[in-house]
């Protein structure tokens, strides 16, 4: 068994506004001179260290727990799961 670092990113669906991202864009980046940046969306990142036989199994465990324990609210959020170094 090996320990894998699995990263879970939770963000608002495109149809749900992200006022924090909008403020970062409007009041920090654009005012700071970075007009090249056209959009910002914030997200919550959870890092999970998971023991599993291989990376695929680690990702599956995390995917299952995200759905089962509502780590994200499917009404308002999208959730993506990535594994470090695979």
């Amino acid at each position: 068994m090996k320990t894998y670092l699995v990263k879970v990113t939770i963000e608002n669906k495109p149809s749900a506004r992200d006022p924090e991202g909008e403020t970062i864009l409007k009041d920090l980046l654009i005012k700071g001179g970075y007009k090249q940046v056209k959009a910002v969306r914030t997200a919550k990142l959870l890092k999970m260290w998971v023991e599993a036989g291989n990376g695929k199994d680690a990702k599956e465990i995390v995917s299952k727990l995200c759905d089962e324990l509502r780590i994200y609210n499917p009404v308002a959020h999208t959730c993506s799961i990535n594994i470090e170094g695979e």
Partner: protein
Amino acid sequence: MRVAIIQFPGSNCDFDTLYVLNNVMKVKADLVWHKKDDLSDYDAVILPGGFSYGDRLRAGIIAAYSPVMKEVRMMAKDGRPILGICNGFQILVEAGLLPGALLRNSSLKFVCKWVNLSVVSNKAIFTRRLEKGHLLRMPIAHNEGRYFIEEDDLKELYKRNQIILKYVDESGKPNESSNPNGSIDGIAGICNDEGNVFGLMPHPERASEELLSPFNTNDGRIIFSSMIEYLKER
């Protein structure tokens, strides 16, 4: 008649709710710790406001898995009145007992003020005594109160009269400045399809005595008295 007021770690409107039920509404109510897994002594449940589990991960999500919630789910299925106030509303949403999500206020600020609410539907047990368009004054105090649901599901809520309260201005009209948190269509409270589970962001327990209202009103009482009247009729 006995009402359970559930205490989660971080609840902070539990005693206010208890006070209103016992001393203002004159019904028996108890504070019940969230680890209790038997609510058979109770006819109705209130999930009070606060910051259960410090809003960690997302307001209401961790409390939604408390042992008592299994029992709350069963009572909801049995048609018993279940009321979620503020954080209690967030818990009901996260437990899947009410549809939608409560996101961070669009102002990114904690909003604490008195608001005007319009009754959109009297489908909920808790608004059964109210006419559509009736105006209520209650305070809000939250950081995650922006009600969100996808367009198709929103249409369904309208069709089934599940939208109960909306934020409006003093004349009863919804507009951008009367919407304190950016909720879709200014929604402040919704119920399930059966009408027995009701969640709202405003605090009726802080609006049940004239002494506590800058407008000398007691509009919060009607939410509790509607429930009490329903239980008496059963």
